[in-house]
């Protein structure tokens, strides 16, 4: 869907500018006039929500950095000072901390949307892979940011996670000491995490640019999984149709975000992090932030240290090869009756792993975590390849336009597509 720009500057200044630096044309073609499938539902608004939260996190982060001191003797106190003394400091810090949680909530919905509608399939494999890289950088950013308040969970979370690398033979311990800049997490660690926590969001901005670029070559996927056949019949311009739809979704999502900020600002946090870091006392129950819990459950499910660490990295690594593990030619789960069921089982398994990650590693919890971990990998490595071979998909609509018209009852003749199948994606919104 990329091609010659249709942008025509009208003013003399616009023409002068455009012939020297065609940036207005770029904005016009990618954000205003971009042809977008006309049947996108609300699950497609999370890209815009994510972009909004990236900007919000950068803005609140920059102003918090003006008040924060990255030193082991002052970090914890400077955060308390932000909460008590700095004008609106409480608001900025709560917005930043809960903004990170909302960012992850939105990215998980965005990823599961991609899984349900087969958005990772040809020709969007690279778009998907860039997305997984974005997710990894997000995790690194959140992890480093969590050390900065220098509370007990900050300290011990960083200790445990940097220790992952000690699982590797020979090079492990030197890597851990290199990461920490000492034998334990200390001032050098805090300083470098602060430096990198300021850097990685801008790397994210760059990656998001690539993500959008890779999106704009094949264009958006859509709930039917049928590609755009006619720009005239199947698409609408991004503006005003999706700028408004996205804006509305952003406002609704903001309500949830602001509810947390104003009414339950510490609900998603850990009380232990309001105790200053103490290198000699480990909290009784170390848990990461909620968005890391499923991976924590996978780590603890394995009785072997190196095995646990490798399996945890593999749980995200498997997403990179997903486009080639899924053998089905049909993209959307709406037309894949078996995959649709396995998709929802997979959602339940992921949530189950998250629940278990927050429980102590003992008895029945470990057994359950092992079963769910095995299923997590089986979903990608066994179920996905086999399903594509044995599943009989429902009949696909001829085109996006046809699907939309059938659904609205404007075409009583019907296109042969089952009504239920066509309406299902819409009811998901």
């Amino acid at each position: 869907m990329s091609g010659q720009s249709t942008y025509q500057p009208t003013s003399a200044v616009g023409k002068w500018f455009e012939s020297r630096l065609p940036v207005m044309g770029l904005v016009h073609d990618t954000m205003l006039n971009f042809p977008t499938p006309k049947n996108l539902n609300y699950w497609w608004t999370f890209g815009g929500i994510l972009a909004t939260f990236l900007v919000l996190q950068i803005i609140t982060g920059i102003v918090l950095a003006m008040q924060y001191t990255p030193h082991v003797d002052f970090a914890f106190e400077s955060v308390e000072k932000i909460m008590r003394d700095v004008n609106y400091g409480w608001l900025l810090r709560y917005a930043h901390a809960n903004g990170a949680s909302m960012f992850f909530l939105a990215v998980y919905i965005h990823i599961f949307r991609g899984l349900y509608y087969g958005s990772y399939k040809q020709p969007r494999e690279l778009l998907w892979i860039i997305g997984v890289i974005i997710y990894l950088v997000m995790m690194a950013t959140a992890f480093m940011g969590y050390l900065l308040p220098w509370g007990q969970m900050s300290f011990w979370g960083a200790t445990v996670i940097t220790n992952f690398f000690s699982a590797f033979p020979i090079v492990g311990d030197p890597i851990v000491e290199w990461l920490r800049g000492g034998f334990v997490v200390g001032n050098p660690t805090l300083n470098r995490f602060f430096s990198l926590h300021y850097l990685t969001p801008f790397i994210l901005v760059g990656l998001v640019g690539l993500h959008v670029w890779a999106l704009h070559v094949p264009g958006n996927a859509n709930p039917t999984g049928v590609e755009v056949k006619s720009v005239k019949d199947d698409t609408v311009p991004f503006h005003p149709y999706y700028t408004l739809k996205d804006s509305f979704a952003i406002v609704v999502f903001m309500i949830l975000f602001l509810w947390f900020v104003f009414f339950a600002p510490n609900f998603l946090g850990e009380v232990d992090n309001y105790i200053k870091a103490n290198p000699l006392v480990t909290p009784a129950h170390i848990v990461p932030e909620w968005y890391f819990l499923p991976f924590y459950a996978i780590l603890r499910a394995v009785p072997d240290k190196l095995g646990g660490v490798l399996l945890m990295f593999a749980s995200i690594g498997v997403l990179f090869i997903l486009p080639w593990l899924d053998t089905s030619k049909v993209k959307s789960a709406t037309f894949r009756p078996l995959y649709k069921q396995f998709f929802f089982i997979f959602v339940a398994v992921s949530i189950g792993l998250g629940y278990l990650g927050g429980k102590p590693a003992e008895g029945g919890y470990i057994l359950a975590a092992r079963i769910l971990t095995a299923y997590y990998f089986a979903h990608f490595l066994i179920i996905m390849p086999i399903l594509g071979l044995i599943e009989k998909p429902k009949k696909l609509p001829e085109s996006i336009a046809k699907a939309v018209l059938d659904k609205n009852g404007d075409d009583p003749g019907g296109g042969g597509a089952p009504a239920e199948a066509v309406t299902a994606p819409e009811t998901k919104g």
Partner: protein
Amino acid sequence: MAHTDQSDTTRRDFLYIATGSFAAATAFSIWPLIDQMNPDASVLALSSTEVDLTPVEVGQSMTVKWRGSPIFIRRRTAEEIKEALAVPLEDLPDPEADSERAEKPEWLIMVGVCTHLGCIPKGQKLGDERGDYNGWFCPCHGSHYDTAGRIRKGPAPLNLVVPPIEYLEETKIRIG
């Protein structure tokens, strides 16, 4: 052109070598950027400490700090020593005789950092949970250590590390 025909070396070869040297020099210049993240001189300077063991009675423990990590010092009871000696080495995930870990059987001195992911195991204080083997227990991921600080059960792969120790006097040691 005539002079180039006389030699196997061409101008292009020079370009290749020059480009390669440039790339190599750039690669070397990255090293200081990486190495600056390693523990610095002031961190390394703190790498030895002296401890007076006199105040510790039999059956008591003491925790001191060395290189930022806690050091567990335990004056073991005769029963604990007997327990540690009685274990057959083939029962251990990381086989190590008690005598290799405690130069003087009464004094067990170890880095108090779980070899799994670095939490501080419980067992130093009187009321602490001490695990299935009456030694130390890491609450993070459930590793059990015995009375010689050896891993017996749980995800930790290795025994609690014994640091380099030198007895300066009967009850005075230097760690590191």
